[in-house]
């Protein structure tokens, strides 16, 4: 598990609405036990070049209902393994949101995110302040900060570590 940072700088990968879990990772790959192997198929359907080219701390920008469908935790997990630093979407499907927090991947909701941010732009996300800065234009976009309880899980490095820290022995 990589160290959690509240300031994330990276390239924007802009996707559309309703990027469901089968587009993030198809069911046929789910019996691959090795996450690194599985990660090679991340977002294979909408962005076949993604897994090859994504860099540490890159940021996914998406429209409505990101991560709808299956409960597969593999979806946020392989994005984390590829180094994705944060996902900003107009809205998230419930289970995906929860899974992302559990694996230590920050998820934020930004209205009209895909209209305000262009694919390839360099961004910095300030989680605590609830702001995203677009590097070229200097534009600042505000968002509702992540709820405190979920920030605690992120800071711990995910739900497993959080569980271990809070276990009553």
């Amino acid at each position, binding site marked *: 598990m990589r160290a959690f940072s509240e300031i994330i700088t990276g390239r924007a990968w802009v996707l559309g609405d309703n990027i469901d879990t089968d587009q993030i990772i198809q069911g046929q790959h789910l019996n691959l036990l090795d996450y690194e192997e599985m990660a090679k198929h991340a977002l294979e359907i909408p962005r076949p070049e993604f897994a090859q080219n994504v860099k540490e701390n890159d940021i996914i920008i998406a429209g409505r209902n990101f991560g709808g469908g299956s409960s597969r935790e593999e979806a946020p997990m392989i994005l984390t393994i590829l180094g994705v630093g944060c996902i900003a979407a107009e809205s998230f499907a419930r289970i995906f949101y929860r899974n992302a927090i559990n694996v230590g991947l920050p998820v934020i909701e930004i209205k009209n995110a895909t209209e305000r941010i262009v694919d390839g732009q360099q961004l910095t996300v300030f989680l605590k302040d609830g702001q995203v800065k677009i590097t070229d234009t200097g534009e600042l976009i505000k968002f509702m900060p992540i709820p405190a309880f979920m920030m605690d899980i992120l800071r711990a490095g995910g739900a497993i570590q959080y*569980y271990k820290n809070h276990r009553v022995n």
Partner: protein
Amino acid sequence: MSKTMAEKILARHTENGRADAGEIVQASVDFIMVHEVLGSRIIDILQEMETDSVWDPNRIMVVNDHWAPAPNIQSAIIHQRNREFVKRHGIKYFCDVNCGVSHQVLIEWGLAKPGDLIIGSDSHTTSYGAMNAFSTGLAATDSAIVLATGKNWFKVPESMRINIDGELAEMVMSKDLILKIIADLGPDGANYKAIEFHGPVVDKMTVASRATMCNMSVEAGAKAGLMTVNKQVEDWLSLRAREAHWTRVDPDPTAEYVEMITYDLDTDPVEPMIATPHSPANGRPVTEVDVEIDQAFLGSCTNGRFEDLQIAAMIMKGHKVKEGVRFIITPASMETYKAALNMGFIETFIQAGAIVTNPTCGACVGGHLGILGPNEVAITSTNRNFRGRMGHPDSRIYLSSPATVAASAIMGRITDPRGF
């Protein structure tokens, strides 16, 4: 204060007996079901959590259903790990590759009861709302936490209330109704919310028809789909959960809903529906869709039950599957399979040229026994038609009721079952 069904059931499971919409609560669950994700992920997570005991082996069900029996080595390893886990922890309920799809089997075994809080490592865990239980899907890490502690945190959902008045027409099934509702709500129309289904239509429905609707609630983003107890549920439980204690949960008459929607099927009848690619929310009346098919699939936790096979057999009787079309039928459980065998449905299917497989998720998840090739078109009684769900990303999936699947298999194109 007045409460919704979701609030009431969750409140029964919190320490202080409270659960108000919007609040995050710690709740104790009654039961958890885990499938292959146990072997592929959860066991490793439990190790990482440094725990080697489960909270209560009598309230856990382990299922090998997604790739059953194993079509490749990876699945075989996952199944082995599940078997070993079941043995080591003395898990009471185990459904190995010969028994069926989790959501059908759990209900058959009488393990979903009114008022229960049930978790499954699968998004279609919403199915048990048909039994008046609050049930929702969580993934590997959250399931591991429940396996270890019997508890987890939940955000108490807001609820929407859908009333359905009138009656379903001939050859129109609960699947058509839920496809219509999801089309109206949109793929995220119920995101984070619980949906309560009320009214004479669901009050009259069989357990199977109700389960189809609660199963698919998640396709509108819902956290849970809920129904009150009806006569069929009572009969079901008195047969299958004889020893169990349960009390029904009804919402307060003045409970607050974020949205109330009414369908009156007498003035505005629902027709057989087709969800076109690539979203379950793309529902349209079958009369507006005319597409040639390569494959028809009847099965899954949505519509692979006895009544689904029954209506398909009725339609198939005396007909043949169109030449060049593959009609694959996968009963949702071994119990369903046996009942269909006794009634002669299996023979009808085989005589018609269909392929009957063992119970498994199989084709539904693009796993095995019916994967689609490039540009192929399928009609299916399952719940998801996402791009690539059943195979090649360039294949196209149309969702419908079992009746429409059978009629289409005969004609080789998407067909209104009302002509049969």
